[in-house]
């Protein structure tokens, strides 16, 4: 089985994001970058398949600026077999639909049996590219999956639902968008990191794919950080009854929520 994981490099979740001077983008001057968490789960899911069936190969692709190479290195260190970087003019400004069109070209070359994407990227939370990729390819798509396994005549896919899951069967190639699962993405082993450091990552010029990078006429108009939180208040009186009474008084008279 051949698997292709689409990954996106995003600001690491430990970074405190600041709005850039233009008021409509993120200040990227001092940011630690990482693979988007759902994409990391997608890599993990693909590698678990490889653990069970060593004949499986896992490729990982990203479209992005040159720094996105680090995200691919991380995926290689985790155990992916190959990585493809699509970069060049427009790689960090392409629309979601444009990204999907570019990824579709890579899919046509790699010819995977399944494509896995995170269900959404943690920077813009659009959850768009995976679904759009299925649309461009004309492939079926299942969202929020936590598990997949080969089955008679195709692949069984576990889709998370409210309070349970559904099992879908894909009879041919499909795009799966991956939900967080119980199994945490693996920590790369040190030999894996060292091997990944030496591995060649082929680069493809985005322009050479000849796709339209524009998308629907939408743009970010404004970005604002959430308002700063005020200090909390600890209510503690002489005994629990008095504490409760004081709390009710505060909620009614000061906060006016009762």
């Amino acid at each position: 089985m051949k698997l292709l994981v689409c990954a996106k490099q995003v600001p690491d979740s430990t970074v405190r994001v600041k709005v850039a001077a233009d008021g409509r983008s993120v200040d990227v001057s001092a940011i630690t970058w990482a693979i988007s968490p759902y994409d990391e789960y997608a890599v993990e899911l693909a590698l678990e398949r490889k653990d069970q069936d060593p004949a499986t190969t896992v490729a990982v692709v990203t479209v992005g600026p040159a720094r996105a190479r680090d995200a691919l290195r991380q995926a290689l260190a985790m155990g992916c077999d190959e990585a493809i970087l699509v970069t060049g003019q427009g790689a960090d400004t392409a629309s979601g639909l444009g990204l999907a069109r570019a990824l579709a070209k890579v899919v046509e070359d790699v010819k995977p049996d399944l494509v896995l994407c995170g269900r959404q990227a943690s920077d813009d939370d659009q959850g768009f590219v995976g679904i759009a990729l299925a649309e461009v390819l004309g492939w079926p798509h299942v969202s929020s999956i936590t598990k997949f396994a080969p089955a008679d005549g195709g692949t069984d896919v576990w889709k998370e639902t409210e309070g349970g899951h559904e099992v879908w069967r894909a009879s041919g190639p499909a795009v799966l968008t991956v939900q967080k699962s119980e199994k945490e993405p693996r920590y790369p082993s040190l030999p894996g990191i060292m091997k990944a450091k030496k591995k060649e990552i082929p680069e493809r010029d985005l322009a050479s794919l000849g796709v339209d990078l524009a998308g629907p006429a939408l743009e970010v108009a404004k970005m604002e950080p959430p308002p700063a939180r005020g200090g909390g208040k600890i209510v503690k009186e002489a005994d629990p009854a008095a504490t409760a009474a004081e709390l009710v008084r505060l909620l009614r008279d000061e906060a006016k929520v009762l």
Partner: protein
Amino acid sequence: MIAPTSGLGILALGLVWVVGWGLFAWRAWQLYRYLRVGRNEDRTRYPLRRIRDELVVYLGQRKLLKRPYLLRGIAHAFIFWGFLVITVGTVDLFLSGLLGVRLPGTGTALFVWSVDLLAIAVVLSIALAVVRRLSFPPPRMHVALDGYLILGGIALLMITLLLFETAGLVAGVAAEGFAVPPLAALVTAIWPAPFPGESASAVFAWSWWAHLVGVPAFAAYLPQSKHLHIVTTLPNVYFRSQRPRGALDLIEGIEDRETFGAGSVRDLSWKQLLDGYTCTECGRCSDQCPALATGKPLDPQKIVLDVRDQLLREGSRLVGDAADRGTPPARWVPTKTEELWACTTCAACVEACPVTIEHIDKIVDMRRWLAMNEGDVPPEAQRSLTNIERAGNPWGQPPDTRADWARELGVPTFAERPDAEYLYFVGCAASFDRRNQKVARALVQVLRAADVSFAILGIEETCNGDPARRIGNEYLWQTQAQANIETFGRYGVKKIVASCPHCFNTIAHEYPQLGGKYEVVHALQLVQRLVADGRLVLAAAAGARGRGEGPPSTSASTQGTSSGFQEKETVAYHDPCYLGRHNQIYDAPRDVLDAVPGVERVEIEPHHRERGFCCGAGGGRMWMEEKVGQRVNHRRVEQVLATLDDGGPRGRGEGIPSTSGSIPKKVASGCPFCLIMLDEGVGAKGVQDTVQPVDVLELVAARLPADSRGGPE
């Protein structure tokens, strides 16, 4: 006595000794060859210290003559000293039987008396040991047939010795010029004919032979049993680690290696394998282990014995085939990884071991293999490692908020004040954990009051790497350490003060492995010095209250995280493992507490100083879930309560309503992780009104003269 040997007897004696000692030598050679499959490690530096250790630990039996094992320690010491002296006597007897020559000095009254008195002491000690095993065996001791065989064998040797001396005296075979053995003299004085008829000569000959055949028989049995420690302790003590105890071994050339840590017994050093041969299965390490005491699957004695058993089972295979790597020690038994991850690296086992076995190094080497080769780390711990990698702190807090705690105090950074004498290495806990930020602020106030010139690195500081190293990710530790060393170098840092024992330990003892050498002190050592030099003067905490806590309201100040300080208060001191056992800093914190006006210091009996009980957070355990057994910090809080609780107001946990406005006693530590763990334990037990965890620095800061407190909060 004149030896009862002649003709064939002499030949038989020689033959028995050659066979017995031959069997010993053959097995010893085999064990030595197994040992050599271990990796090389130079343990020869500091020969003078090593000789001193032999005198103190081996000859002086220092690690045995200690509570809580004092009585059995004395018994062991007599058996050991008896063994040393009587061995000389036995060699003398052998030579007299074989060649008719005597060793010089064995006829003197001093020697003869020593042999007899020690032989009696040995018999009594063995009686004690047998009674103890039969009627009140120590909980963790591995009581097996082997032990009785050994005790029986030694007793037989002693009894035959005393018997042939007495019978020989009666039979008139005393050698000329030899002092009369005192026990024989005493027995014959009371009872001139202790043996019926003419049997004295026969009794003499039989017991003499039993003694002289017993010795080589014992020698042949020795290397098959745990009693081999009488041979291996000598080198095991000599080659003990002379690194500071808190320092782990460096993996050199880590970028060029293919395997890391112990993927095979071959990857354990020969000294670690020698530890296995030396273990006497006494169980002292296990008795002291906080993980085992609270129901975890870890048993430090088993860690050592598993390595030994694996070596004995795989040894001949590994010797025969250089390509064979055998089983990874971390996979020796299916539950092994759970054992390994349960360790807090508190060093209670290392401290307790009478034969200087190094348990932690083995556990960390096995963890290294799991963490770096297999990437198999408990998921929560893995998250903290990823956080260190990406954010420079295990909490995963935004790195640019690292110095927020210091902003209102206006603490200068080295960039702002490059001529500062001390670098205050704040550490992640005091930088990001709200409770410990108060401790950092307390230290700043104290240093300012004593007019110490210091600065911090601000957001240029990054995790010292200690949790990564102890979890087994040596690579991440080296990365973190190098980053800090580079930053220190950029500012020409020479002196460092740390309020966290983990920062202190790794910077002081482990950074030198990567070339970072500084004068490092823990904050409480510095404060001790400042008090002693008169640079820091403390006042009574009259009407004292927590700093920055608002008005001194009666009840608000008794919450777990606030600090209400009283004029007089009882404070129990909790030894952090990385100050105490790992660095032998027991007195500085106590001196500081004693210098704080109004503090009455108490010890948490019997778990203080060398026997301090871990809070449960060391060895990366802070970052792992603790689901099996009782939580270590809860056990520690129980011990603290047992010391402090004098029947005063109890907390909710005991079902008795708390009395508002009551004054909690305090348990003070010098470690941010101990503080977090004690706070959690106190909260979980609902005893906030009985005991309040604090850092010693907070007690000091609350007694600063009003004019020197300085700086807004």
